[in-house]
């Protein structure tokens, strides 16, 4: 299975949401990293046939996904960022309904729903109304609905947004388990979500893929180094203005800064191993601090 985007652009009147994106994906987990407003959701909506590219084309094994129509949607699973459901249906009925519109026959749907309810840990609350589930449970119901048709292409848009750390780890493990024999594209602005599980990363900024590769390749090719240096509390503000600081740790002898720079920022600075968070900060600058980007 190969999913290919060729010079894909999406414009909304004067605004270019996605600009000339060309990527190829084969089985495995792909991470789409970018700050809010980078164009990740628009790109994913095009991949899910919810939006039509203004230019370029998206193909699945060489065939245009919009021409494939139902055949493409048959192998697609999608968990939208703004995942909505029918609040008055119970979790089981919700999944049974989605199974029906995904074309599963009732007997197969029942079996599959039961299996997925167990897998995502919702079996015990299957008769509870969707609106009464916790945020984490709703997200798990979301991943379950995306998996109902055993999709070959699984698109997850910000699947961990709003989840607590425990739920996020659980979610990550679940995605990792599901990633066999399929393409999983995971969009997020939370670096740790993808750093563990993605085989390849796409860094997206202002509608463009600015960098792509495996985590090692990205770390290797990012033209910056990380340095640890300790400065007095009085000098911290001046340092923040002068360098890109990825982290500040307060200590009794002053603040330990993690500075991103080609050269040692000061005498005594010790080089540290570059992380994906550093790369994220390097590419996305101040915007990377929005929301919980570096969590």
């Amino acid at each position, binding site marked *: 299975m190969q999913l290919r985007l060729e010079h894909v652009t999406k414009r909304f009147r004067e605004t270019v949401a996605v600009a000339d994106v060309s990527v190829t994906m084969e089985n495995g987990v792909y991470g789409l990293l970018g700050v809010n407003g980078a164009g990740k959701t628009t790109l994913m*909506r095009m991949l*899910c*046939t*919810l*939006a*039509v590219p203004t230019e370029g084309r998206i193909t699945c094994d060489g065939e245009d996904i919009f021409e494939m*129509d*139902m055949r493409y*949607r*048959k192998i*697609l699973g*999608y968990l*939208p960022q*703004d*995942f*909505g*459901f*029918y*609040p*008055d*249906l119970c979790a089981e*009925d919700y999944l*049974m*309904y*989605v199974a*029906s*519109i*995904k*074309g599963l026959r009732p007997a197969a749907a029942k079996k599959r729903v039961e299996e997925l309810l167990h897998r995502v840990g919702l079996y015990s609350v299957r008769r509870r109304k969707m609106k009464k589930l916790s945020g984490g449970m709703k997200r798990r119901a979301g991943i379950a*609905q*995306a998996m109902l*048709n055993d999709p070959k292409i699984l698109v997850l848009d910000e699947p961990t947004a709003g989840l607590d750390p425990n739920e996020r780890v659980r979610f990550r493990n679940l995605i990792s388990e599901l990633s066999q024999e399929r393409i999983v594209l995971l969009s997020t602005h939370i670096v740790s979500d993808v750093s563990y599980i993605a085989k390849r990363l796409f860094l997206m900024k202002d509608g463009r893929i600015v960098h792509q590769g495996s985590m090692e390749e990205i770390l290797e090719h990012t033209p910056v180094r990380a340095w640890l240096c300790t400065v007095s509390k009085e000098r911290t503000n001046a340092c923040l203005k002068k360098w890109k600081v990825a982290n500040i740790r307060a200590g009794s002898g002053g603040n330990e800064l993690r500075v991103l720079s080609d050269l040692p920022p000061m005498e005594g600075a010790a080089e540290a191993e570059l992380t994906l968070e550093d790369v994220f900060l390097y590419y996305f600058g101040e915007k990377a601090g929005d929301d919980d980007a570096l969590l």
Partner: protein
Amino acid sequence: MLYYEFRKILSKTGNRIALLALLVLLGVTCYFAVNGYGTSYTDEQGVSRQGISYVRKLREARLAWEGPLTEEKLAAVIRKHAAVIAAPEYNSRDVTEQNIAYSWTQDYQDIRQMICRAFGEFRSYDYYKIDSLSPEDAADFYPNRIRALRTWLDTEAKDMYTEEEKDFLLERYEQLETPFYYTWYLGWDKLFEYGPTIQMIFVLVMGFVTAGIFAGEFSNRADAVFFTSYHGRKKAVTAKLWAGVLLSAALYWTVWGLYSVTVLGALGADGASCQIQVHVGWKSFYNITYGQLYLLMSFGGFLGSMFLLLLNMLVSAWTRSAVIAVTAPFIMIFLPSFLSNLSVPWLSKLLGLLPDQLLQMQTSVNYFNLYRIGGRIMGEVEPLFALYGALSLLLLPTVCALYRRAGRG
């Protein structure tokens, strides 16, 4: 798929409240129909009594006049009335005495009303007209109906119709079989009186329910999952539409059936074979019976409800807003009422073809709006059924096509 669409609709708290409200309003409407004006019985002491047992007494009294309304029978009514108005009780200033006198008239009240219509002007009604009649006047009862129309067409309505249209109306009047057959018809009368109310209530309440079927995917933000599913742009959309149509149809016949059974059960179902001209349609040029008018009302109400609810679903699918969709039936039902105050002939013809007319068939059969279609002259009933039957069929694929496109940006 269809089963879960039903579950989605019926599991919504708002929809459950709406359906409960529909049930309550049905009960209230039935109460008014069964206990409303004309259902009381005045006993020999002049006391007005209400209730099913008194409706039965009233029925027994009126059935004394059952049968063909011949000249002799009409003359007998005029004679009896003359005797009543000559009685001291009738002329007394005491209300109880007057009520006692009224109790002597209640057996022939239906026939009295017909006589007053027959001997009055075409567009007026004088309740006391019978007071001035003699038994010999009874011979003019049936000819007067045609004479009044002819006079009206030659004077007031002189420029409103073409000669051909005038001939059409007169011909229809002349075709009416006489003498009328009279029997107790209060059940039908009340059913027709409150029928439009229950049909309008049904459309307005169901409009609330169906408005959410298509817009709900967007308001619940469930549209992305819906439209990316295998059947999301085809069968799943059709299932939504059928859920709306089947639920509306099933509830319409349930509500209308319950209403009919309650009213006719309480007030009696006699009179189905009476001409509508005996009461609700004295001036109507539709020569049909109460039973036929009931069928017209039932199927007209059904078609009107279906059309307005399909329109509501179309607006819902198009605007993605249940709030805007809910207003569609309101506008279609209430706007014509405001516009009808303007006495513009062409507007009256136009208003006669709006879908709200299907919800008030007992009024439609009484309107004198004439249309020439394919060389034939007809009233508004025939084109209403043809027009909204065709439009409803057209709306079915349109709603689906519109919604299929809604989910793609």
